[in-house]
């Protein structure tokens, strides 16, 4: 099992190194003519105004939060799905109860208007 992940580790490191090598190769091959106007940040062709600080809307945070909840719920369901074929029939009720709890949390958030984009 550990050798499996050793390969994953090797692949990750190799991917990082090879992509880095691609960047190095590109840096050797391309022209370098830095220019103040070229280096200016892009704002639809106009001059930038102020620091790059965006009014952060709370919707982004809320979507990430709802995602965390469902992520954890899913991770809890994975071992159960794995063992599903050997589980006795009544466990379906327990699992459905859990799934319905998740669903009800989503419906609650929906009713309270948390899932709107604006």
């Amino acid at each position, binding site marked *: *099992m*550990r050798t*499996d*992940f050793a390969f994953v*580790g090797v692949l990750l490191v190799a991917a990082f190194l090879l992509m880095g090598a691609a960047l190095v190769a590109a840096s050797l091959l391309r022209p370098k003519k830095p220019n103040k106007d070229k280096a200016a940040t892009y704002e639809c062709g106009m001059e930038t105004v102020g*620091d*790059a*600080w965006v009014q*952060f809307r*709370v919707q*982004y*945070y*809320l979507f*990430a*939060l*709802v*995602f*965390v*909840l469902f*992520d*954890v*719920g899913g*991770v*809890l369901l*994975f*071992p*159960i*799905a*794995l*063992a*599903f074929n*050997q*589980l006795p029939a009544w*466990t379906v009720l*327990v*699992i459905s*109860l*859990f799934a319905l*709890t*998740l669903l*009800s*949390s*989503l419906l*609650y*958030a929906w009713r*309270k*208007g*948390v899932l709107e984009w604006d």
Partner: protein
Amino acid sequence: MLTFSTVIFVILAVVTLGAALAVVTMKNVFHAALMLVLAFFGVAGFYVLLEANFFAAAQVLVYIGAISILIIFAVMLTRGVTMARPNNEQSGAVATASAVLFVLIVVLVGPWKINFPGFAPLNLPARAFGAPPEFKMAVQAVSPDALQRLGRALVDQYMVAFLLAGVLLLLAMIGAVWVARERKLVEIVKERREMAAEEAAAAVPPAPAAEAVATTDAHH
């Protein structure tokens, strides 16, 4: 006894602890959040070493895929965080405190021997309460159907805990909805005014601070 696992363990330990230290000492808060991501990767590596590869993947999925994003969003919500301006003012104090705490824990609490030549931890709890039971540090082989047994246990033995976990997620959602509720403009203005007054009180030097604190108390 320098096996391959030990080398990997040491590398992972250095990376994780270094990243964790960097989280609290880096000046740029966004970089600190990214170092936290690196620390999470290190922990996932430890799970792999323990042959708990489901948990390694779960660590990546939940912590790096979800919680790090939440943390980075929270960092960006902090007022005053702009692009390159460093704003972690407590880094020196926190760094020393973390280092001291780490050394204390290793030296005082570690009940098992660390096999570095010439190093024997103080082992104070053993001297106080008697020697702890034999602790086998060897990694025991994980049975191949461990995950299935876990799944079975979740609905069989630990059914209540499992359902309570679901209820906990529901409560978390309710909490999030409450925190993000629509507040009337008047309340938001009042809140902002209070926060600004607290900041002004903290920024002003101590002598007039007493009066400033008295006035904000009067506002409440």
